[in-house]
């Protein structure tokens, strides 16, 4: 029997739209984009139904397609114009002209918490998301691909068409800005 006949496409929306939506929403900027990606996932899956071979469950297969859609989204969001603008602006903000020391009012402050304990409050994740959205899109893509999708560095560089050197610069900027944003809005809120 043809494996694609095991797919129950008419129930996809009922069975999977909520979990896919939750997954996508954590990774993109807004609800409308998340809805689009979920819908596109179902349509692409249907069009590619002949490639389904039943070694994976229907759910796993849909997630794999969805994940590709998300990576496409990261790639499109990272315009080449942004990538080429590798200037020192971001670092100057933190380190001043010569870069030797942290600017007095931009240095990391002590946080009154136990670094060995995991963060359990929900608020952290919503603030993290807001902070992530403030980054330049290419920085968001690099960061999300690494820390949310767990894709290796070489593959991220190939997908986004950037050099490894650029990758380190973009990633560092993402981290330094996220730390500051979280300190301001989560620690000192």
């Amino acid at each position, binding site marked *: 029997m043809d494996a694609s006949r095991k797919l129950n*496409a*008419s129930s*996809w*929306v*009922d069975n999977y*739209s*909520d979990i896919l*939506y*939750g*997954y996508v*929403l*954590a*990774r993109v900027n807004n609800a409308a984009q998340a*809805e689009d990606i*979920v*819908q596109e996932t*179902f*349509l692409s899956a*249907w*069009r590619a139904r002949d490639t389904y071979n039943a070694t994976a469950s229907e759910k796993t297969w849909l997630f794999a397609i969805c994940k590709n859609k998300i990576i496409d989204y990261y790639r499109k969001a990272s315009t080449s114009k942004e990538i080429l603008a590798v200037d020192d602006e971001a*670092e100057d903000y*933190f*380190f001043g002209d*010569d*870069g*030797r*020391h*942290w600017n007095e009012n931009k*240095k*990391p*402050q*002590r*946080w009154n918490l136990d*670094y060995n304990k*995991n*963060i359990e409050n*929900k608020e*952290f*994740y919503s603030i*993290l998301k807001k902070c992530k959205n403030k980054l330049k899109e290419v920085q968001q893509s690099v960061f999300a691909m*690494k*820390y*949310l999708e767990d894709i290796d*560095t070489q593959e991220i560089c190939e997908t986004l068409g950037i050099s490894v050197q650029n990758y*380190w*610069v973009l*990633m*560092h900027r993402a*981290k*330094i800005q*996220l*730390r500051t944003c*979280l*300190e301001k809005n989560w620690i000192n809120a």
Partner: protein
Amino acid sequence: MANWFNISCKKATFLISKKQESKLAIGESLQLFIHLLICDVCKLFKTQTNYLLHNIKIHQQTERLNEAAKEKMATVVKDEISKS
């Protein structure tokens, strides 16, 4: 030589970020090690970013699609299925 050991905070934080994902070259490793011995601010940067990265796992979103969006999606998918 004295200068070679004495890297800036800007360079040190860059190396901290890099080390969170990959191995540093021996020279870089040494430069960072020495900087962290003398610079509490960068040490704090390291502790805090390590902590944040460790905690940035996907948090299970409980938000659901609203019914209107779901119905619309069901219609679009049904149309596509009936085409073939």
